[in-house]
């Protein structure tokens, strides 16, 4: 298992690449098929946010280990405009674009752990984890 994969995100085709790499790693790790779909969906949303709001960035996926537990860590970074009020942005239905405002809150529901750090003018980093059950 490659220890870490970096996927450059700059276009809609890269979103597909990130989704497929994530799916492959979750299969390797032995996630249930429904968790495989869930993690890939969360990655798709976060990757699309990079393309839509920051134009470019990267997604890093790697294996997470915690005692006897295995899982996947996804880190999505960009140096885009950042988010003014992260708490508001995490709410269902909040959007500054043409979306439904479901990407961030939905990804949080799909994953076990979700953390977002953002600074206006500096960029956004989303870190998410999901453990194999």
């Amino acid at each position, binding site marked *: 298992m490659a220890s870490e994969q970096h996927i450059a995100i700059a276009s809609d*085709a890269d*979103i597909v690449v990130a989704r497929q790499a994530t*799916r492959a790693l979750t299969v390797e790790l032995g996630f249930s098929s429904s968790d495989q*779909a869930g993690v*890939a*969906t969360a990655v798709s949303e976060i990757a699309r946010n990079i393309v839509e709001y920051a134009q470019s960035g990267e997604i890093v996926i790697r294996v997470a280990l915690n005692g006897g537990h295995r899982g996947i860590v996804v880190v999505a970074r960009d140096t885009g405009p950042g988010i003014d009020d992260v708490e508001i942005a995490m709410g269902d239905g909040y959007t500054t674009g043409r979306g*439904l405002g*479901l990407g961030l809150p*939905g990804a949080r529901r799909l994953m076990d752990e979700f953390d977002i750090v953002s600074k206006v003018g500096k960029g956004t980093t989303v870190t998410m984890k999901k453990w194999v059950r």
Partner: protein
Amino acid sequence: MQVPILKQRHYLIASIQGALTDADLLRLCDDLLEQVGKFRSQGVVIDVTVLDVMDSFATRTLRSISQMLKLRGAGTVIVGIQPDVAFAMIQLGLRLEGAVTALDLEEGIAFLDKGKKEGQRTWPVSST
């Protein structure tokens, strides 16, 4: 990857063959609108069986496709959403409201036939 569209009687069948980019989905939308007009199709089935992810963009696009086709007088049925995909969509908070869904291609066509026989002028907007 371009989605092939087959003409079958007065229907069009779009069977997605693999992962789609956002651009591919928008192209599918354009292609269907064009072909529905060209062939005077009365219904469209979009088969998404192979999709292992349906995120917010895909859902939104499929929903607008079905709304646009409705304005062109054609019913749309989305068939083959996998159980795991459906589960993830619900957790994400997505609904396919305004689009008709069916289990598989056969049921999708049966649904369109039924609507035709009953002479419905407006197709059911929602299956829920």
